[in-house]
């Protein structure tokens, strides 16, 4: 559905994303993780069109969209959320979502756009706050609003940029449930996230970025036990020590390859 081919984005001389290639299959949930500054949000902006790549090609449903403006991509069915939420501050929640339906969603009449907005708000759990203004919301609700607005455009591909950052564990659980449900309704999803537990639970595959480069792309479990990933997240020294620990335990029990979750694995959950 979506293909990135050798995408590079430099700011000045500084590469934010370098030679990134990956494919998103129709109907899947792809997680994208990486330490701070790895280029995750840049990748989202490149796909959404807010940034133009320095080189490389982006294809959506077989069509080259590298040079299309963000609104043109939205009309093709690519919707995104913003890591730093961008509500229409002086419009109420319902109107925020109506805008999504009216334009990206291609609904011409205001009345029908309002009906779709109400349905979407119900779905993300904001219906009872429909009259609050965009700048009167809690963090969790602002993230929900981002999702609601994107959903109102009736997307085929949904790009979620850290919609779970700053949420409580319970809210993370709700968000994960919502993403699953959206995916099951036929929407392909790219989730960029810092909250490790959330993303492993919801993703079919995970892609890891480090210093703008892809260092791993595989099933969640495989990615998390990849030494390069551990190193990228926790530093070289920790990775060496962990490998040594595992080797020792392997020597003791004779099963180094398939060791069960140990206290060492808590880092995966602790990262937020």
């Amino acid at each position: 559905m979506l293909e990135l081919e050798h995408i590079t984005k430099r700011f000045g001389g500084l590469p934010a994303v370098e030679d990134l290639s990956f494919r998103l299959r129709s109907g899947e949930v792809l997680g994208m993780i990486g330490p701070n500054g790895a280029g995750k949000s840049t990748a989202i902006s490149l796909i959404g069109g807010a940034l133009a790549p320095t080189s490389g090609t982006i294809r959506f449903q077989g069509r080259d969209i590298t040079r299309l403006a963000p609104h043109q991509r939205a009309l093709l069915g690519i919707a995104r959320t913003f890591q730093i939420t961008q509500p229409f501050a002086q419009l109420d929640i319902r109107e925020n979502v109506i805008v999504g339906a009216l334009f990206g969603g291609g609904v011409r009449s205001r009345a029908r756009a309002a009906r779709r907005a109400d349905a979407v708000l119900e779905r993300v759990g904001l219906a009872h706050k429909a009259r609050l203004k965009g700048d009167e919301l809690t963090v969790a609700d602002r993230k929900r609003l981002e999702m609601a607005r994107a959903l109102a455009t009736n997307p085929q591909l949904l790009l979620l940029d850290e919609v779970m950052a700053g949420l409580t564990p319970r809210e993370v659980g709700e968000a994960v449930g919502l993403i699953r449900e959206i995916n099951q309704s036929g929407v392909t999803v790219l989730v960029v996230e810092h909250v490790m537990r959330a993303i492993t639970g919801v993703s079919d595959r995970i892609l890891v970025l480090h210093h703008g480069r892809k260092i791993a792309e595989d099933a969640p479990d495989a990615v998390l036990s990849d030494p390069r990933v551990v190193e990228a997240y926790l530093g070289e020294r920790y990775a060496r020590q962990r490998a040594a620990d595992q080797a020792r335990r392997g020597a003791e029990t004779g099963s180094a390859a398939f060791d069960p979750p140990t206290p060492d694995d808590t880092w995966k959950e602790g990262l937020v």
Partner: protein
Amino acid sequence: MAKPTPDREIEADAALALAPRESKDWRWSLGLGIVILAVIGLIPLTGDQSALGMWTFIVMYCVLAQGWNFIGGFAGHAAFGNVAFFGIGAYTVSLVLERNMPYLLGLVLAPIIAGLFAFLLGLPVLRLRGHYFAIATLGIAEALGQVIQSKNVGGTAGEISLNPPGLNFELTNSLFFYGFLVLSLLTLLGTTWLTRSRFGYALVAIRENEQAAEALGIATYWYKVGAFVLSALPTAVAGGLFAYWQLSFDPVGEGGAFDVSISVAMVLMTFLGGAGTILGPILGAIIIEYLDQYTSISFTAIHGPLLGVLIILVTIFLPQGLIRLVQELIRAPAGVKQSYPMRVRQGVRRVTRFILSNGI
């Protein structure tokens, strides 16, 4: 009835925020706008020619502020050169009359030429953001005035004198007054349509967050160009009425058709009344232009300072405009029964909170 506790007031506030209800504000605004214009429309019946002159200016500024509201209020782009459209309208009509062609032709050509100019100008300048856009529009309007000044058509320094329409004096004045009034009414209807339309939603979304608007599928650039053209149309017709009413066209200088203070007035009036609202520009124009005319005649000494202080107070305490204040006062919680005094008390409380949250 028990004395309402603060708790209950908070509950009422919460209910207000949560109640899903369709806004019918626009009907009130449109109705009130029509009533205001209708009442102003009675002024020629008094036969007082100096009052008529003053109110013709006021209604003209209503139109100018309403025109600016499209690009400045709805799309949120601080255009400081809208006087260019006014000047183009005045110049077009003057040239048409100077060649002894019918006045109506001039009034039709004025918005067409100004709209075309807004389109061609908008293409480059609407790629600029914030202050750069403001400065570019300001500079271009000023430059346009200078260019026209350098071309002598009917007099010195670009001036053109026009022959009077050949009707009696009182009738002529009344006709121009009603011309402006009808124009203001049409713009009022246009604005009301805009607040309900897809186009209007796009402009407001651009004002509130251009990046998000673009990501949601709004072709922001073209909608901004559209808003710019829209704001040129009534402004140019007003310029065309102004030139013939004054029987002269003077491009630059105080009271000239390209005078930068006209641009500033449009911005001020719209902000005082309420940018991006239906009624705001009309209210703002009436208040400021009335004060301006009144004090310049009766209190010449404090004329400047008074307006200056007004501008400062509005910027600090009421950047959202008077309309927002009224909305805050009357917005009533749905589904919560309240006694009249309690509603007034809560309204006043909300307004105070609102003003204080702006200021200091």
